[in-house]
């Protein structure tokens, strides 16, 4: 089973555009990433720019409205994530406990849906969706 471990750094919702972690924090993070990799559980990871560089598209009455970041009402913001393949929810949580986070940070652990989890009719509705990822897969 796969899990996404989402990093919610304290105050990231209002972080400055050029906010960068300290060299020490980066080194610790690299070490943690390496331990995930060595254990064979790491499938992917990414860091996200602060919300001030992002946008929110919200939907009401069939209309989409765009708001540029930062988002005044947001109480927290995702700063990055890992995707891990582990044997249980507890194992994902145990990995999250080891993440080198700063005071006040949060890591949220959520299981990723697998194709097999969906019902037949959902799959039918998703039919044809393969075109995009397949193009990516055809690269090599």
């Amino acid at each position, binding site marked *: 089973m796969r899990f996404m471990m989402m990093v919610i750094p304290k105050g990231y919702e209002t972080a400055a555009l050029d906010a960068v972690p300290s060299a020490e924090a980066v080194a610790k993070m690299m070490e943690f990433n390496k331990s995930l990799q060595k254990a064979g559980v790491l499938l992917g990871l990414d860091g996200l720019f602060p919300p001030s560089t992002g946008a929110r598209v919200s939907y009401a009455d069939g209309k989409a409205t765009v708001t540029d970041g930062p988002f005044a009402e947001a109480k927290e913001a995702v700063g990055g994530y890992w995707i891990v*393949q582990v044997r*249980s929810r507890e194992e994902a949580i145990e990995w999250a406990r080891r993440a080198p986070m700063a005071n006040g940070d949060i890591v949220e652990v959520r299981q990723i849906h697998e194709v097999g989890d969906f019902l037949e009719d959902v799959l039918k509705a998703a039919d044809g969706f393969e075109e995009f990822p397949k193009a990516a897969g055809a690269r090599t």
Partner: protein
Amino acid sequence: MSDVHKAGDIHKAIEAVWKIESTRLIAGIARVTRDIGIAEELAQDALVAALERWPEEGIPDKPAAWLMTAAKRRAIDSLRRGRMLEQKHGEIGRELEFQQQRLGEAMDQAFDQVIDDDVLRLIFTACHPVLAVDGRVALTLRVACGLTTAEIARAFLVPEKTLGQRIFRAKKTLAEAHVPFESPRGLELKKRLESVLAVVYLIFNEGYTATSGVEWMRAGLCEDALRLGRMLAELLPEESEVRGLVALMELQGSRTVARRGPDGEAVLLPEQDRSLWDYAQIERGMSALDRAQRLGGGAQSYALQAAIAACHARANTLAETDWERIVVLYDALLQVSGSPIVALNRAVAVGMAHGPAAGLEALDVVAAEPALANYHLLPSVRGDLLVKLGRYAEARKEFERALAMTDNVREQDLLSKKLKQTLLID
């Protein structure tokens, strides 16, 4: 510090710690004991201590250090009882005190620097050719994947007692054969790596295609095998075949959902709904294959098999499949493996690339192979080709022969269906 756990959850949390830490723990202890059987028992003792203490005290901040300290205590206890050193380090000391101190220090040191090489040694030893193959598989899942005896027994559909004996026997064999706790180098490395990769692929296939019974797939084993493969890729970054195997497993694994029909029946590649393939997994497979090829291993067995799987993964429809390339890859694979099964698969590809008559011709070349005499896929493939040529009566005979050769209920269903179809068309 301790987390607040619900009563039932603490055991699961301890299990999770075990899954994460046990491999490095056993590897570190084995560096001192030079015997993975003893190392594994000491690590198990540490786990038992954790199961006693942690529900009350909470999970410690540094669980790995805690477990290593507990294992050290047990090691010193057992030294005091004179068991371990008599057997392993008889030549070392006269004074128990001195020995205890030495052992304690060695274990502290081992813990401070459980190096990757220890983990590698652990895996090479568990997959040592001196062991029977089923022993290698069981021991590897136990020491390198952190599975319990019960979990392994369940996955392999054997009684727990049988599996326990299998692991016990494997440890005993290693001790009796005085297998050193080391990783091989140079030419020896290539040979021994073959054995390790074979074990990993066997675990994968055990999950991917059940060899008996109604249950077709046990995805957990596939994930364990992939995890092991990725671990090995980190430990041996220059070995192209490790990447080749990871690529092969990812690409095959990407079809897990698609190859199982709504009633649990087998759906073979041509009939699979390709929208059910896991394209993220295909991506991972493609990048591992790319690594294998860039390391110069493109012409080796696993990389070639992965390249064939990649041809399928790239095709949006069955008709788009580059069968000619697949035939070329099979030709190369035959050069390195020479397996009659490969020749059989090649015949299928020839049939797709150059028509059923050519396929049948290619099949005739392998048909005489004694290794395939009781292999149900030989008549099954022949039947498929005959159907395409409109020779239904002959096809029926082949499907009937195939049916008599397999005990797998799913395979039987599939063959019965084919048999019925030839009756309908004819």
